[in-house]
């Protein structure tokens, strides 16, 4: 889109930032420029995290036919408005900050302290390369996707530090299980992203989002999720994201009901809250990447809806992804560890590898038009759907459908 037709709201955040930067002397401007970007990311996603927790609690409550937190009003104002309990996360933050911080006597003090700090720091790094709007991207990198995954790689290290530093058998065992899960699902996650890179031909998130612009007949968006390989990759990406961020149904690492709390057993107070913060940040960053890669990034779904600023579209899609994940948490049951690893290695990894070939096929046949276009869609669909059913049949042979011997059917 040409700058002339750009809505003024598209550039409004940038104009505001430049206005603040210009208030400072020239030698300090680069520093202020970067600090403002960092502060905005921290504020926006800190608040996003706070309201994700309250949204999650309320939605889960509604799914379970409860009301959820609805009591916290405004401080120093008795019988004031309740605001539907929306101030709950701030009360929770104060609670977590004022709680006692218990460190086990035998713990490795340095690692025990370093683990929650590192995990939050690394989970925030991914936000740097997400294109939040047409002109809004904190850091423009040529190898942005690689950076995103490199930044996320260190969270495994932090979990290991938490488990080992606690000097507790349960913590260590649970940390090893969590690592096995993270490493197993790293592979389908990365493999599901590669077809996008192959088809678009770049690792830059900005270009990938821009490549999904345009509409067929003015209302069918060219998002990657609306292609056979894109849909398959997106579904694999969703499952892998759930597992990577320890969300239900893959929340074995800190399954509250069975393992006391996994690698978080020896953490209390704000350090415990930091782990959860990192989990939500990681989930949000991965959802943002999913939106960028498959759901068109900041692109509007229809041409006539383009008057809404692109960053609002991005945040809307991001919120939609988060709500979807909360819905999944309220719906599905937790897997066993053997089911979890089997799902990854025997099902998702082969499918993701096949989908890689599918992406290559799609990238090689952009000039198939007319009836050949139908053949292109058919072949591409067959490449993923046929193995999906064959693999599913083979893996569930003798195990599904389940027969309930003792429960009345």
């Amino acid at each position, binding site marked *: 889109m040409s700058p002339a037709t750009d809505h003024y709201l598209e550039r409004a955040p940038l104009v505001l930032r430049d206005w603040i930067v210009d208030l400072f002397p020239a030698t300090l401007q680069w520093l202020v420029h970067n600090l403002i970007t960092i502060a905005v990311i921290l504020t926006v996603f800190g608040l996003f995290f706070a309201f994700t927790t309250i949204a999650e609690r309320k939605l889960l409550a509604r799914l379970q036919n409860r009301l959820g937190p609805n009591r916290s009003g405004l401080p120093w104002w008795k019988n004031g408005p309740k605001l539907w309990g929306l101030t709950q996360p701030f009360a929770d933050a104060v609670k977590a900050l004022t709680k006692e911080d218990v460190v086990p006597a035998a713990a490795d003090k340095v*690692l025990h302290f370093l683990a929650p700090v590192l995990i939050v720091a690394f989970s925030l790094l991914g936000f740097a390369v997400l294109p939040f709007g047409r002109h809004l991207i904190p850091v423009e*990198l*040529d*190898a942005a996707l*690689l*950076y995103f*995954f*490199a*930044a*996320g*790689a*260190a969270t*495994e*290290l932090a979990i*290991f*530090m938490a488990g*080992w530093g606690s000097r507790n058998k349960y913590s260590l065992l649970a940390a*090893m299980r969590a*690592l096995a899960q993270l*490493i197993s699902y*790293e592979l389908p996650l990365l493999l599901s992203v590669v077809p996008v890179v192959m088809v678009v*031909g*770049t*690792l830059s998130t900005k270009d990938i989002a821009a490549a999904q612009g345009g509409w067929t007949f003015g209302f069918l968006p060219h998002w990657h999720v609306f292609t056979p390989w894109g849909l398959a990759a997106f579904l694999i990406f969703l499952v892998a994201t759930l597992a990577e961020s320890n969300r239900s149904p893959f929340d074995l690492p800190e399954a509250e009901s069975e393992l006391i709390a996994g690698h978080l057993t020896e953490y209390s107070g704000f350090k415990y809250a930091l782990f959860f913060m990192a989990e939500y940040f990681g989930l949000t960053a991965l959802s943002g990447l999913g939106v960028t890669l498959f759901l068109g990034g900041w692109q509007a779904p229809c041409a006539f809806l383009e008057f809404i600023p692109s960053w609002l579209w991005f945040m809307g899609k991001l919120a939609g992804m988060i709500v979807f994940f909360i819905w999944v948490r309220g719906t599905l049951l937790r897997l066993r560890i053997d089911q979890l690893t089997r799902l990854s290695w025997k099902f998702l990894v082969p499918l993701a590898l096949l989908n890689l070939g599918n992406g290559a096929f799609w990238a090689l046949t952009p000039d198939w038009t007319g009836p050949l276009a139908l053949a292109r869609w058919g072949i591409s669909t067959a490449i993923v759907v046929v193995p999906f059913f064959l693999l599913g049949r083979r893996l569930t042979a003798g195990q599904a459908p389940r027969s309930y011997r003792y429960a009345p059917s």
Partner: protein
Amino acid sequence: MTIALLLIALVILGAAAAAMLSRNLIHSALLLVGAWAGIAAFYLWAGAEFVAFAQALVYVGAVSMVVLFAVLLTRQGATSAPVEFASWRRAVLGLVVAGGVMGVLFGSIMGSPLDVRLPAPPTGISVQQLGLLMMGPYAPALLIVGVLLTVALLGAIVIAAVDKPEDTP
């Protein structure tokens, strides 16, 4: 820029030295990861963005896990490794090997031209160009490394997948 390089070098060398001096194997492994992260920072300083991220992804993310798992699975008894060497013969042999490696390294460093004012490297090589180079002129190297890693992987599976009689039902 030079100050940044000195800082990075200090972090790498400091982490590596602390890793060698630490008597706690887990601490050594984690410090080693710190050194690898420092090397990634050095690549970033040198303008090799792609290599830096690949270094972080592979070493900080994956190889560190292999090292930590290996330490945890093979560690016997206490965490502290023995401080004194087993025998004088071993100590002398160790010194000879270390001296030999150091000599070779110093020889190659001293033998290479130390004029750092080389013509400015072509900056802004995109990942796409890098990929085309890897798939074109340097494809044999990539293939050889791939075959090597596949062989290592198969070897690991063969070693690990021994069916013990008690495992079979």
